[in-house]
């Protein structure tokens, strides 16, 4: 017992070191616009703008989802600022409003502090407030808005998808598979959620929809074993991408997190560089706990990027601002519906504007 902590630390340490090269190098200088331009030519896994005659573009849907709530937020802001000068009370109320968007207390304070700088006790218009709010939110998010890209010459490129129960991992995998297939890539899906009833069937249906092959085992099978088989098969078949689903797990369940580490260990037996990406799927309705989720999954599973789902509801996903400030992990995509097309690249500017400007 006495030497166990050291051993673990050592293990995690090694783990992190091993995980490092696989993580995409952070490039804060890269502007979102540049990323957007680069995306298609780099054969990225980002969404191409759907043809105009298709039902409703992802952006419209995202914006519709976000504006429903941001309209209220901006109304509230307008309510405060047309009436009063920028004093302590007003700032506190603005802070509250940001908290209400799930930005978290610290982030809300940081933004209000920026707002107060040089403007204290001066008249300020609601438009100004919103502009500052938007630019502050954008500033926090711009460096992390990086579309999911299948880079390097790993064949297969292994993507492991992790997260808490019910965040939308399997659905997100289905959507990503669809995009990759449309780009002409061969995709193999591994039904690694061997715990939840019918999770395997769910992924198989996504496989049929997207034309991707699915590797599955019986319910209750060892998910690490399945991952091993899937990676071996993907390598033999020279697949472009292997997407591995995992069972949802609460980050404070040690045994389940250990199981996830085992999956990673086993993958590395087949390919020491795998997994090339580890995506954490976050639910936009989640509050401050999302910070803990990122922290633990990053530590245990070497998360390299985030996907936020359920942004088509009233939840604003403001916690992303706090997460970006703390961890700087790339946000690859957002889920804005249950349809196969409802996955969009994350755009900091639009996200911030949709929150702040309505």
């Amino acid at each position: 017992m006495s030497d166990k902590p050291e051993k673990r630390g050592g293990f995690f340490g090694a783990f992190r070191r091993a995980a490092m090269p696989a993580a995409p190098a952070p490039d804060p200088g890269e502007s979102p616009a540049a990323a957007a331009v680069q995306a298609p030519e780099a054969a990225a896994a980002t969404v191409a703008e759907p043809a105009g005659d298709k039902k409703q573009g992802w952006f419209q849907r995202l914006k519709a989802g976000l504006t429903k709530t941001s309209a209220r937020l901006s109304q509230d802001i307008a309510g405060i600022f047309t009436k009063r000068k920028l004093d302590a009370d007003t700032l506190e109320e603005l802070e509250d409003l940001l908290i209400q968007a799930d930005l978290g207390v610290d982030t809300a304070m940081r933004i209000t502090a920026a707002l107060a700088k040089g403007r204290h006790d001066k008249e300020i218009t609601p438009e100004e407030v919103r502009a500052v709010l938007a630019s502050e939110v954008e500033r926090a998010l711009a460096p992390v808005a990086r579309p999911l890209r299948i880079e390097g010459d790993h064949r297969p490129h292994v993507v492991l998808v992790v997260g808490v129960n019910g965040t939308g991992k399997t659905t997100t995998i289905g959507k990503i598979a669809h995009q990759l297939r449309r780009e002409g890539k061969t995709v193999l899906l591994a039904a690694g959620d061997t715990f939840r009833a019918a999770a395997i069937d769910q992924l198989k249906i996504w496989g049929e929809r997207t034309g991707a092959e699915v590797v599955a085992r019986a319910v209750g099978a060892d998910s690490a074993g399945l991952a091993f088989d899937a990676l071996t098969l993907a390598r033999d078949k020279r697949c472009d991408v292997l997407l591995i689903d995992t069972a949802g797990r609460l980050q404070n369940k040690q045994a389940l997190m250990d199981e996830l580490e085992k999956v990673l260990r086993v993958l590395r037996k087949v390919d020491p560089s795998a997994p090339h990406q580890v995506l954490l799927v976050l639910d936009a309705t989640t509050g401050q706990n999302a910070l803990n989720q990122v922290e633990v999954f990053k530590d245990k599973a070497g998360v390299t990027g985030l996907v936020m789902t359920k942004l088509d509801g009233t939840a604003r996903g403001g916690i992303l601002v706090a997460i970006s400030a703390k961890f700087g992990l790339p946000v690859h995509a957002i889920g804005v519906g249950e349809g196969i097309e409802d996955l969009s690249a994350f755009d900091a500017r639009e996200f911030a504007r949709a929150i702040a400007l309505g």
Partner: protein
Amino acid sequence: MFQSLSDRLSGVLDKLTRRGSLTDSDVSEAMREVRRALLEADVALEVVRDFTEKVKAKAIGQNVVKSVTPGQMVVKIVHDELVAMLGAEAQPIDLAAQPPVAILMVGLQGSGKTTTTAKIAHRLTTRDKKKVLMASLDTRRPAAQEQLRVLGEQTSIDTLPIVAGQTPQQIAKRALEAARLAAYDVVLLDTAGRIHIDEALMRETVDVRDIAQPHETLLVADSLTGQDAVKLATSFNERVGITGIVLTRVDGDGRGGAALSMRAVTGKPIKLIGVGEKWDALEDFHPQRIAGRILGMGDVVSLVEKAAQTVDIEKAQAIAEKMRKGAFDLEDLADQLKQMEKIGGMSGMLGMLPGIGKIKKQLDGANLDDKILKRQRAIISSMTPKERRSPKILDGKRKRRIASGSGTKPEDVNKLLKMHRQMADMMKTMGKRGGLMQRMMGGGAAPSQADMERMQAELGRLDPKALEALPKDLKEHLPKGLPGLGGGMPKLPGLPGLGGGAPRFPGLPGLPGKKK
């Protein structure tokens, strides 16, 4: 859940209770911090505002400031308001209707409806001996109906056969007919997850509700939900009309603010909480106990209930008798350690004790785990019966033998002996004291429900000094290697004597030092 909220709140309130007198601005300052603690715990802003205003209005009055222990009064007001916000009484699922009783499950995608449906069905079947039918109305998510069917197989509960191509409305009709024909007591209708602003889907739910005429409509919500909880609960309540809330993932490390928000804005009770992945990991929600836990006052009622289920009362009383006579030997200590493990080990038990919450982290840091209990028992097992009865005869040679017999070191044996000595002394002192302990032990039998509720109420009025004393003593002792949490215990009136198992709680004390 609630742990970190509890940490924050008790920290804030501690500052208050230490003060001899309070000004209005002290109270306002404290309320600002309470407000922030609640916000950080994801309690919705409007609910927080309402809460702090109510507390402030009551706390700033003359009564508090002039009372002998103003800080304590504020703590009590916060406690009472928390209880008011959470609802005073536990409200279980209501089945008092003409069978088949329909229960409709609604909620967002991924909130845990299907799993919860199976858990409720399992509970009604095994505990209430009801005949239950489950039907999935989720025609949207791939394999959702299949998921419920598999869960039905795993829990041996009937599910409505899947007919491809039916609408949710048709399935609901079919489920009710099937339930009537086969004389089911309860029919659980699991619906597709839906976003509360999706008008088409909400209309579908209303249709299903009109067809099924559910006796209960339960909103299944994730306890990790943030500020959106309010909108979510309000929309479902206004649109569909819920009768109660089931909170899931309460075993996560969220702060549970959503629970407070949803109850407050809808006025609908939280009926059940999901606390794990197993079928029986579903518990009733007891607002009063939760309020106590949030304020770090502990959940003594739950602790006593658990103790009553697991502890051998006769044995406990025999030990109590011995203690009073000052004849508490190592054999008794071993018994206590065993019983502590049964109750759920150190951490399970400590979590329910007043004032412990906030120092739990320190305890974790001190390697306080249940292995220590096992090791201590191993040390005692390696002694001869004679040594156990009279530890005085233990010399260096005997200690070395015991240490090698139990796979420990002589120092560990010494620590155990020291702890035992401290406990024996403390218990002698305590035995002389009156109070709840005597009352409880006098009765002889397990404490009645009324006794327990009274104790919980007493805890609410607990002398805040006593609450403080415990952690303080603990802190002092921790660096020295954790010998006796014991020092502080006697100051906790009443607590020690719970459930005739008196000895057990003082037994909490000694833990050997940090082993590195």
